[in-house]
């Protein structure tokens, strides 16, 4: 909220984050903790999109491609390797590398806006269709069957580094996920304050002027896209471990679409916005799922339409404006 200094805002967010991190496992039972973990996973995924879109100006219609790559890479690698540290890292680096390649292809081709959206949509679709069709037992990577639409169940979950016989318990998973969310959130803030981050924001403001000042815009955009891919991949790893199951749906259109809804509702241009959006929408979805009067998709769709028409900036920025106007009175 404007009026409060940025440092104070950060302290408040950090405070809330730490309270939740250390406090929740004491207050809440394991089942609920598990439910909350998925909120964190989605918040992280939303953050990845919010970063590249709100700050990098890149609207990716297929962010689920990297989410899915993270999930599947972990599953396949964990089955083959057994100990989880390598797979964990690989599952972040592979989506990031893939994003770097895809990004380079798009940005060095000077693609933008709609056309970028289509290509990212198509790439996610290609991954979905491909993985979905691998049900046959001949589709194997090492010892891991890809499973097609059946997915990959029961792979080794994350363990304490170096000790495959000590898998993380649900509350430890929560600590990891929440800790990572806080780390990534503040990491991104730091990045945005750095020289790199300021240039990225400038590029989003006016790409031509950034070029005329001598910055290689294509390189910066590729880097931003790669970082977003890596974070989405991280969310994918956590997702895979949360449910101990991956299926082609992680690459799906619905997954990408939902992420976009999270970011828009929460607010483009802030980092807390996507997190709030994800938590809110996920909460709503869960509540709606428990009744059968009104359909899920119907309500989500209605929300999206109303938000675009009435709150074009999203929730957090609008709230921020209301607060600052309130203060001036």
């Amino acid at each position, binding site marked *: 909220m404007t009026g409060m200094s940025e440092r104070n805002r950060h302290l408040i967010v950090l405070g809330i984050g730490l309270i939740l991190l250390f406090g929740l496992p004491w207050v809440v039972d394991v089942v609920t903790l598990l439910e909350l973990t998925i909120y964190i996973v989605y918040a992280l995924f939303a953050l990845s999109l919010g970063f590249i879109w709100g700050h990098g100006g890149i609207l990716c219609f297929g962010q689920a491609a990297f989410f899915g790559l993270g999930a599947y890479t972990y599953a396949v690698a964990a089955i083959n390797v057994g100990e989880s540290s390598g797979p964990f890292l690989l599952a972040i680096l592979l989506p990031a590398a893939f994003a770097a390649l895809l990004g380079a292809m798009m940005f060095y081709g000077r693609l933008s806006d709609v056309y970028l959206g289509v290509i990212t949509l198509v790439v996610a679709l290609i991954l979905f269709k491909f993985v979905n069709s691998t049900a046959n037992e001949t589709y194997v990577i090492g010892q891991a069957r890809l499973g097609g639409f059946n997915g990959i169940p029961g792979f080794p979950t994350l363990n304490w580094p170096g000790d495959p016989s000590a898998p993380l318990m649900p509350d430890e998973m929560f600590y990891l996920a929440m800790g990572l969310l806080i780390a990534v959130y503040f990491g991104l803030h730091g990045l945005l304050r750095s*020289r790199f981050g*300021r*240039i990225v*924001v*400038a590029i989003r*403001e*006016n790409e*031509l*002027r*950034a*070029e*005329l*000042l*001598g*910055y*290689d*815009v294509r390189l910066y955009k590729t880097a931003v896209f790669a970082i977003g891919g890596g974070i989405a991949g991280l969310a994918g790893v956590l997702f895979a471990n949360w449910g101990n199951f991956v299926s082609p749906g992680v690459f799906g259109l619905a997954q990408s679409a939902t992420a976009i809804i999270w970011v828009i509702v929460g607010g483009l241009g802030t980092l807390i916005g996507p997190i709030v959006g994800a938590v809110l929408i996920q909460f709503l979805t869960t509540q709606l799922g428990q009744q059968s009067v009104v359909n899920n998709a119907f309500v989500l769709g209605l929300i999206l339409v109303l938000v675009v028409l009435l709150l074009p900036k999203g929730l957090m920025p609008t709230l921020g404006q209301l607060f600052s106007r309130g203060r001036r009175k």
Partner: protein
Amino acid sequence: MSARGEVVLETRGLTMRFGGVVAVDQVDFTLRDGELRCLIGPNGAGKSTFFKCLTGQLKPSAGDVLVRERPMTGAEPCRMAQAGIGVKTQTPSVFNGLTVRENLFLALARHHAGRIADARTDEALERYGLADLRHRRVGELAHGQRQRVEIAMVVAAEPWLVLLDEPAAGMTHEEVDALAALIRDINRRSTMIIVEHDMQFIRMIGDRVTVFHQGAILIEDHVDTVLDDARVREVYLGS
């Protein structure tokens, strides 16, 4: 700085076609070190298109652009900037959502490390008279102020070649006088090309003038000679 008189920018047969329209028609252009060259001509004469071929915003259909004898035809704008060329576009191209200070910082950040860049930014704010505007969003400034910010951004890192497209547009009389003085000052260190419409302004700063007409160079000479030329008057006013 190279010896006076050396050719620092050259185009050979530069042509730009849009569909069936030839906007720039086989232009041979030479610029010498230290010059302040004005490009003038009626609307649609091709001067802005020619300008964009120099900045890298447009890739020429044919011909060459040589910067200090190095071919830079169709180079990306960032390469031109990295070669030491500062550009101000026709419509102000600034970071509207960012503060004046941040805009200037970004102009300098490529040349200096973090803390030095900060110091240089504050110096630049003072030098270009923007210190009291430093925390204002550029998008909220008046047009003339925005132009001043852009020009400051363009010259802050002291490029050896400065290209300005209609720098005086939308400025008040006082601002134009200040601008003319600033340009003369810049010219002491940098070679310049200025596209302009305002004849008074050109008289204030003018050295050599190139007149464009229908995509080609009509005449190129000292400012007074050109403005007295009958052909030029005809092109602007009709016979």
